[in-house]
């Protein structure tokens, strides 16, 4: 059921500033795709364009075509909320709702979608928390505030919250950058597990992480500050890290740049 994402000539702007320039790539269902590159190269912007979170910022707009199973999500008659339900997102810093309990956090998306039945919610909460490898740690304190968990647990809670609404695609924007190595490993394990059900696109600064978890890797870069970010190379992870075809990629992978 996971879906294919296809971007063709996607350019994103913040006001007059062009953040990324005509990105084209295809992401196959049930794969993990990593986006790597130096800071400010537009990989996060591209990620946020995929579920239309980019346009939340004032003055932000986009050009080009972005389809999910051949439906252009930027068509005028597309419901933004449906897109975002279909393409979930996990953010850089864990962001559970501070006023809600663990349980309420997980079912927040379902409640928004009008699910009121307690049994359905309970069930979904348990399933999502289990899928996020968090159930065993929190099953005894579902009614405690979500903000009371550790950073890694909070991030897994956010993943549980995201997958509870049963999206097709999960976007992860540097999900481990605020976490310690052990929590990072837990999240990476989780990604392998979720790959069976979701298409995952992850932005990361950590090249080892990209090499460990992803099937395909896209390398973004900018020529100089102020220029838009471009997709330099997009290929199998194996190939990118062993035998990249672009000099820039090789420089970056081997640490000679960025």
């Amino acid at each position, binding site marked *: 059921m996971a879906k294919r994402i296809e971007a063709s000539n996607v350019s994103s702007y913040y006001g007059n500033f062009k953040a990324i320039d005509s990105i084209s790539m295809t992401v196959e269902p049930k794969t993990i795709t990593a986006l790597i590159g130096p800071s400010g190269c537009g990989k996060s912007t591209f990620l946020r364009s995929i579920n239309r979170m980019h346009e939340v910022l004032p003055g932000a707009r986009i050009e080009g075509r972005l389809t999910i199973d051949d439906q252009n999500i930027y068509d*005028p*008659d597309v*419901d933004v909320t*449906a897109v975002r339900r279909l393409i979930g997102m996990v953010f850089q810093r864990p962001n559970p709702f501070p006023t809600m309990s663990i349980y309420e956090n997980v079912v927040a998306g*379902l409640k928004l979608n009008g*699910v009121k039945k307690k049994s359905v919610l309970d069930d*979904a909460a348990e399933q999502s928390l289990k899928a996020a490898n968090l159930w065993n740690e929190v099953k005894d304190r579902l009614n405690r505030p979500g903000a009371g968990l550790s950073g890694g647990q909070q991030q897994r809670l956010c993943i549980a919250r995201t997958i509870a609404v*049963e999206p097709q695609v999960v976007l992860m924007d540097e999900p481990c950058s605020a976490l310690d190595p052990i929590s990072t490993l837990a999240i990476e394990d989780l990604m392998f597990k979720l790959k069976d059900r979701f298409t995952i696109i992850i932005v990361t600064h950590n090249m080892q992480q990209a090499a460990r978890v992803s099937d395909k890797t896209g390398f973004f870069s900018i020529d100089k500050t102020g220029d838009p970010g471009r997709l330099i190379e997009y290929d199998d992870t194996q190939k990118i890290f062993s035998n990249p075809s672009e000099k820039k990629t090789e420089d970056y992978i081997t640490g000679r740049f960025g």
Partner: protein
Amino acid sequence: MSLLEREVSGVAMTPDNIRTRRLPLVANLGTAVAAIVVAAAVVLGLDLGNWVLVAVLAVVFYLIGISIVAGRVEGRRAARDRMWKSLIYSACVLAILPLASVVWTLVSKGASRLDGDFFGTSMNNIGARDPNGGAYHAIIGTLEQVGIATLLAVPLGVLGAIYLVEYGKGRFALTVRFFVDVMTGIPSIVAGLFVLSFWVLIVSPWFNDGQPRFSGFAASLALTVLMLPTIVRSTEEMLRLVPGPLREGSYALGVPQWKTIVRIVLPTALPGIVTGIMLAVARAAGETAPVLLVAGGAAAINFDPFAGNQSSLALFVYQQAGDASRYAPARAWTAALTLVALVLILTVAAKLLARRNRLSR
């Protein structure tokens, strides 16, 4: 079994279709027109009220109508989103209406007595049948009372803020800060009563052969009580914005702390402090109740703030409003216009100053 394979009954959780129907503008306008027509028909047809009721009912009908129409076309959630947005927008319109009315009345009614006589004469020997008379004495009173109050409140307030930021620590400082905040909420009439019982009834007889005496200075004391917490809070906020390294640089040169505060910290925060003071002054200038209680009000000019009754612009407005003379309302409105102009000029100037202040965020 994966979550996705599980059927969740009755909930379209992951629609393959991300498209939606959008409510066309025509439908929106149509709903609005229909709401107005129905409201007019109901109200005027049944003779329930006038156009105001038509407008109110039309808004209500529109909100209901748009929820139903949008609910059918776009779905329940989008409809609810639309309804709340409309409600939030109408709240703004609703709040602007009285403000516009106040401004319009001030200008239209206040302009009639905006003449030299108003600013040049007092109400001394002005009878009920005299159309002239002015607020000169009241303006003098306001300036003197607020001026003295500022002289008292500013050093006290700024020093208090310095204590809270530079010296204050532990429970006592917390208590002081808490009660400064609480003090901002003390009603002005209570401040007036305090000065009445303390200064007018107990202290002033010592200076006046045992007789209690109203005075402009008593009003200044009451205004001081009202201004103090505002000044402390705004100054405190500004002092906290002064970067720590600036202080440390001074200490490292061997400058003692008090000198650092006076020479480095205060000048840096000065524009912000002045802004806070101006806002406090504006608030004090508009106070009526304390002046009424402890300065007594007067019809004649009294330059001496320490002896005898004084009036103030705000009190002048109140007393003219309660005057039976048919010329009194015009005087009241002109004084109100003057007062609002004074207060708004101070406020706007303070805000502009704050905007230029490089310390504020």
